[in-house]
């Protein structure tokens, strides 16, 4: 197929894009900066759900709950125990990950529908816990997270928050990319395509599912902690079924099984509700219809469309450099033949 983007440009696309993102705060006012911060948070959360739903093919409703667990862990550790934010941020991810890995144990025996049902029940239990466990979570009063310290730096303004968010998001994006190119990433896709075939090829299905859940919960947890940082105030209601609607929309509109897709989805899905602010009914209607239209008519999302026109590379789940190695082998084989 014709390639409109020269391969040499492609190699530098990611660093250049990241470098350009450093200058965003120069162009924004306070409100647009806040929206940009939210986009980064949702990009992380979207990548987490995409690992589970898009790559590993597990249909679960617990992502918003893990985001809530992360947000509450970070906010409560920072404000009530005085833990510095640079510790409570990874701690939030770790707590979500551990709960995710434990919660998935009973779900390993389940398939499809039952998994979805069990995770809905789990999600409702978590929001119920956040409301009723008042001694720790302060119930429906919510938790304030005002300007925590990061290595002695006070992260108060939206601009400072942006750089913290950007650094974390960039690291997490590259981490996800590496994971997907590893054996684990290929195992995710294998169990998505056919569990039995995967098992016959020596993939431990239960272990792979546990990793997928734990990893996705880790992303949701970190995303949740950064969500708390961005908003400065969290309530249990924010992590219910409305939140999971956002996550599904990000992944489906952006593109299932595409990391850049999650970024695109996060941009669109975060800006839309800001434009329709205060019109909750219209928001729900637009999300619901878009979700249906994309699933019905464009199941590979915007990333799929871009891939079709060669604007996004096909994502190849092999270790970097495999092409060069393969070319070398071919070359070696050809010269061996020539020698004969």
């Amino acid at each position: 197929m014709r390639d409109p983007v020269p391969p040499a440009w492609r190699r530098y696309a990611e660093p250049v894009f990241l470098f350009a993102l450093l200058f965003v705060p120069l162009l924004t006012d306070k409100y647009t900066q806040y929206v940009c911060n939210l986009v980064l948070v949702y990009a992380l959360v979207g990548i987490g759900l995409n690992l589970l739903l898009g790559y590993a093919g597990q249909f679960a409703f617990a992502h918003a709950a893990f985001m809530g667990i992360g947000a509450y862990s970070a906010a409560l550790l920072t404000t009530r125990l005085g833990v510095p934010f640079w510790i409570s941020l990874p701690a939030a991810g770790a707590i979500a990950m551990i709960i995710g890995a434990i919660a998935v144990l009973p779900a390993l025996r389940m398939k499809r529908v039952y998994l979805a049902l069990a995770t809905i029940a789990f999600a409702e239990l978590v929001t119920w816990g956040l409301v009723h466990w008042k001694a720790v979570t302060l119930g429906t009063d919510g938790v304030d997270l005002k300007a925590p310290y990061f290595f002695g730096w006070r992260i108060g303004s939206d601009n400072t928050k942006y750089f913290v968010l950007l650094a974390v998001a960039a690291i997490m994006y590259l981490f996800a990319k590496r994971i997907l190119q590893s054996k684990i990433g290929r195992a995710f896709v294998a169990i998505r395509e056919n569990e039995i075939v995967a098992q016959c090829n020596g993939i431990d299905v239960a272990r792979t599912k546990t990793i997928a859940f734990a990893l996705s919960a880790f992303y949701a947890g970190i995303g949740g902690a950064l969500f708390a940082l961005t908003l400065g105030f969290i309530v249990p209601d924010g992590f219910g079924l409305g939140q999971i609607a956002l996550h599904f929309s990000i992944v489906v509109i952006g593109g299932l099984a595409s990391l850049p897709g999650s970024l695109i989805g996060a941009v669109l899905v975060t800006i839309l509700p800001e434009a329709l602010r205060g019109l909750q009914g219209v928001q729900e209607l637009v999300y619901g219809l878009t979700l249906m239209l994309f699933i019905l008519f464009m199941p590979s999302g915007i990333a799929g469309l871009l891939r079709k026109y060669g604007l996004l590379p096909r994502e190849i789940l092999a270790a970097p450099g495999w092409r060069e190695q393969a070319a070398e082998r071919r070359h070696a084989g050809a010269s061996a033949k020539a020698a004969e």
Partner: protein
Amino acid sequence: MDIATLLLAGIAKGSLYALAALALVLIYKTQDVVNFAFGEIFMFGAFSGYISLKILTLPYWLSFVLAVVTIGFFGALIERVAFRRVAHMPHLTLAMVTVGLSFAMKGAARIPFGSDIYTFPPIFPDEPIRMAGVVVAPQGLATIVVAVAVTGAFFLFFRRSSLGKQMRATQQNMTGARLVGVNVNKVFSVTWALSAAVGAVAGVLAAPSVLVYPDMGVTFLLKGFAAAVLGGLDSVPGAIVGGFLVGIIEMLVGGLVSTAFQDVSAFFIIMLVLFLKPDGLFGVRAMSRV
């Protein structure tokens, strides 16, 4: 409160959950998908009852019938417009369509009605009846009677009528049914229409106690799930029994333990059943063909 009163209230609630489970199981058996938009169909049922009764001021029985018929047609319309073209697609796609539908329907109700809560009158004036020391609300009795009648009608329909037999044939083997001349598309339409109509019946019956608002469907959907999972997702009698059990357990937990746990008892049931007996009480052990 004494146990008998709690039990009777539990059965009244349970008959609503049984209807919800019945509606979910119907669609699951034919199309192998859980309808995540069911809570919103239930909500639409309650709202159409509210519109005909309070805004158009029609008589109660006519509003009830109108709501059931309208929502039944609406169910068939959803199947025709959104579902038929993806019926052969992976489970994930189908489930995602119903998730999208559920948000869209919630929004569609919120735009005209806002997030306000509307009251809905019961069928009979709400004077509790006392019989031999047991207190029961007339609405509860009416709910039980209607639910049992609907369930009975379904059993007759599946056993006796030609269409019912065609539906069962399609559930067992779609290709086989098509080969012997069953109009599978018609079966799909009828399934969705019946499921939505059952949802509307439940919606109008539940409206006086749960009140009418755009978010009313979520908890009901989860209770229906709990009932369907308890009975086994592919068993109609299981769904009915599961519904009554969930209702009774919920009332007993609320009355004897704490009302805070009443709302989450259903989720504990889901998780516990899936952990101990993943195919439910009456379900058939799932086999996967390689």
